C-alpha cells in the first residue's frame, strides 16, 4: 500500500489550497479529483470578493490572465413587482472609505470554476503535490479507531497520516468515517443556468458588475463572466415548497427586463447545473481522529451570502498547517486535530459564523419566504418613489407642488411603516440572542466619540438606562 503524509480528497479550491500548503510545508502530499480534470464537477456562483486581496493576493493578481475573468466593482439590484415589471434598478459601488479598508477598494473578480480550479490545482502540483484525476475516493481505511487512509472506487488503498476531506457538501469521507450522514437541516439546493453571450455587448450593457433579481417570490443572482453569465437561485431543502427551485429560475426568465437584457447581449442558454450548498447557522463538526473536513464538507459557506470558495481556501490552508503540526508531534488523535477547529475559530472564518444564526434568520424572514418577500418588495417599491439616494426624483411639475406631493405621500404611508415594522422587522430582532446584541453594541462603541472611553460594562449599563427596548437584552433577559 502506498503511504503519504497527507491525502487530500477533492481538487476544488479547498483541496488544492490544502495540497499547496501541505506540499509547501514539506509534506508528501497527494490530492484526488473524481472528474477528468479539476473543475469538471464543480459549479458555483463564483464571485470572489474583497477579502481575497487581503488573504490570497498572489491568486488575485493572476486571475486577470484566466479566459473567463471579469473584474467586478459594482452590485446592481433589480426589483420586480408581481406583474413582472422592473420597478427599480439600483447599483452600489465602492467609496473612498472602502479604499481605506481594502487594498483594492471594492474590486472583486468573477471566474468560472472550470478556469479557477485547474489554476489552483496547478499551483499545488508546482509546489510538489501529486494530483490524481478520474479517481473517486469511496471509502476510508480505519486503523485503531482513526482514519488512516482512503480506498478508491478502483479498490486501490492509499495510506495517510492525515486525510483532509475537501469533497463537497455530500462528503463521502464524512459519511464513510461515520462523522455524519445527511445534513438534515441547513442545506440548500442551487439550480444554476449558464448563458453564453457577446463579450463586447456584455461590457456595454452590464460592465464590471454582478446583478441580482428580487421579486415577490424569489431572489436570484446573476454573476457575470467575460463572455457569459450565471443565473442561479437557492432554496433550503427543509422547506415544503410552493415553488420548486428550478421553477424560481423560470420566473426570472419570464421577466421582460431580463429577456431584454439577454437580447441586448446576445445571450443563449449554454449549460444547466445544480449543486447542494450548506447554508448553516453553525458549521458541522470538522475533525475526528486522522480526518479534517474543509470547505462545503464542513458546512463553512458564508451564512449571509452563501459564498464558499474563500471559506474553502481559508479552511484548506488551516487544515494543512494543522496536519503539519500533528505530523511533527507524531500524534493524529482527535484531541490533537481539535487544534484545527481552534485555529479556524480564531480566524476570520470563525468570526464569520459568530452571527450565523442571525444571518440565516434574515434570509428565512425575507427572500426564502415568499409571503414576507412579497410584502418587503411592495414596501421597497413604494419607498423607491422617493428615490432616497438620488436628487433626481420627480421634479416634473412646479417644484414646491412636487415636493409637497412626495411629502404627503410619505406621511400617508407612515402608519403602514409602523404596521410593517411591528409585523416584519421586529421578528428579525427577536432572532438575535442577547449575547450577540451586547457584542454588536460593543462593536459600535469605538465609533462613538463620547462613549468610546467607557468600559464595556459601563457603556452597556448606560445604554440600558436610555433605551427601554434594549434593556431586556442588556439585563440578561430574553427580548419581548
Amino acid at each position, binding site marked *: 500500500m502506498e503511504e503519504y503524509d497527507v491525502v487530500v480528497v477533492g481538487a476544488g479550491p479547498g483541496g488544492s489550497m490544502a495540497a499547496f500548503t501541505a506540499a509547501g510545508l514539506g509534506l508528501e502530499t497527494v490530492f484526488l479529483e*473524481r*472528474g*477528468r480534470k479539476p*473543475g*469538471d*464537477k*464543480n*459549479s*458555483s456562483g*463564483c464571485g470572489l470578493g474583497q477579502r481575497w486581496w487581503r488573504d490570497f493576493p498572489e491568486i488575485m493578481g493572476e486571475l486577470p490572465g484566466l479566459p*473567463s475573468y471579469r473584474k467586478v466593482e459594482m452590485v446592481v439590484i433589480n426589483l420586480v413587482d408581481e406583474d413582472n415589471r422592473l420597478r427599480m434598478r439600483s447599483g452600489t459601488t465602492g467609496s473612498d472609505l472602502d479604499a481605506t479598508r481594502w487594498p483594492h477598494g471594492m474590486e472583486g473578480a468573477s471566474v*468560472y*470554476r*472550470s478556469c479557477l480550479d485547474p489554476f489552483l490545482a496547478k499551483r499545488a502540483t508546482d509546489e510538489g503535490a501529486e494530483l490524481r*484525476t*478520474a*479517481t*473517486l475516493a*469511496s471509502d476510508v481505511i480505519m486503523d485503531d479507531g482513526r482514519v488512516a487512509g482512503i480506498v*478508491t*472506487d*478502483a479498490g486501490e488503498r492509499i495510506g495517510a497520516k492525515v486525510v483532509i476531506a475537501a469533497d463537497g*457538501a*455530500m462528503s*463521502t469521507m464524512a459519511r464513510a468515517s461515520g462523522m455524519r*450522514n*445527511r*445534513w438534515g437541516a441547513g*442545506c440548500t*439546493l442551487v*439550480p444554476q*443556468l*449558464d448563458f*453564453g453571450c457577446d463579450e463586447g455587448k456584455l461590457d456595454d450593457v452590464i460592465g464590471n458588475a454582478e446583478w441580482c433579481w428580487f421579486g415577490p417570490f424569489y431572489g436570484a443572482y446573476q454573476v457575470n463572466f467575460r463572455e*457569459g453569465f450565471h443565473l442561479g437561485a437557492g432554496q433550503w*431543502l427543509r422547506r415544503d*415548497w410552493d415553488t*420548486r*427551485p*428550478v421553477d424560481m429560475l423560470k420566473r426570472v*426568465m*419570464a421577466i*421582460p427586463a431580463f*429577456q431584454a437584457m*439577454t437580447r441586448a447581449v446576445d445571450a443563449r*442558454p*449554454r*449549460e*444547466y*447545473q*445544480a*449543486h*447542494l450548498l450548506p447554508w448553516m447557522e453553525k458549521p458541522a463538526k470538522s475533525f475526528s481522529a486522522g480526518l479534517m473536513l474543509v470547505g462545503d464538507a464542513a458546512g463553512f459557506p458564508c451564512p449571509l451570502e452563501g459564498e464558499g470558495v474563500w471559506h474553502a481556501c481559508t479552511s484548506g490552508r488551516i487544515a494543512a498547517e494543522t496536519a503539519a503540526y500533528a505530523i511533527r508531534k507524531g500524534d493524529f488523535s482527535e484531541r490533537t486535530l481539535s487544534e484545527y477547529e481552534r485555529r479556524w475559530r480564531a480566524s476570520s472564518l470563525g468570526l464569520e459564523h459568530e452571527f450565523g444564526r442571525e444571518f440565516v434568520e434574515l434570509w428565512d424572514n425575507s427572500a426564502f419566504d415568499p409571503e414576507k418577500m412579497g410584502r418587503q418588495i411592495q414596501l421597497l417599491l413604494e419607498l423607491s418613489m422617493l428615490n432616497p439616494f438620488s436628487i433626481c426624483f420627480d421634479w416634473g411639475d412646479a417644484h414646491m407642488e412636487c415636493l409637497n406631493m412626495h411629502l404627503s405621500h410619505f406621511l400617508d404611508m407612515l402608519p403602514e411603516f409602523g404596521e410593517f415594522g411591528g409585523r416584519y422587522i421586529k421578528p428579525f430582532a427577536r432572532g438575535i440572542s442577547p449575547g450577540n446584541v451586547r457584542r454588536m453594541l460593543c462593536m459600535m462603541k469605538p465609533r462613538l466619540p463620547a462613549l468610546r472611553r467607557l468600559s464595556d460594562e459601563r457603556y452597556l449599563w448606560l445604554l440600558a438606562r436610555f433605551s427601554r427596548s434594549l434593556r431586556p437584552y442588556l439585563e440578561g433577559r430574553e427580548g419581548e
Partner: protein
Amino acid sequence: MEEMKIDLKKLVKRVGETGEFITCDESRCDGCGRCADACSMGLWAVSGGKARLSPRYTELCLECAACWEICEREAVDFHYPRGGTGVVIEYG
C-alpha cells in the same frame, strides 16, 4: 412577450459509463414525494405509494444529491459515479 423555451436536458454534457449510483430502499420509502419536488431533471415520481427512479437516470442525473439530502426516511442512497465518468461542467 415570448417566454424563453429551454430544454434543460440538452444543456448537460457527460462522459463514460457511470454504472449504478443511486438506489431507493422501498421498505423505508413512505411515498412523500419530496425527492420528486427536489429533482430538477424530473427523475423521481411516486407511484403505488413508493418513489420510483427513472431507469434512464444515469443518462440524465446532474449528481447534485438533493434526493439523498431531502429524504427524511433515508431511503435514498446516493454515491458519486465512477471517477472520470458522468456529468462534465464546462461553465461552472
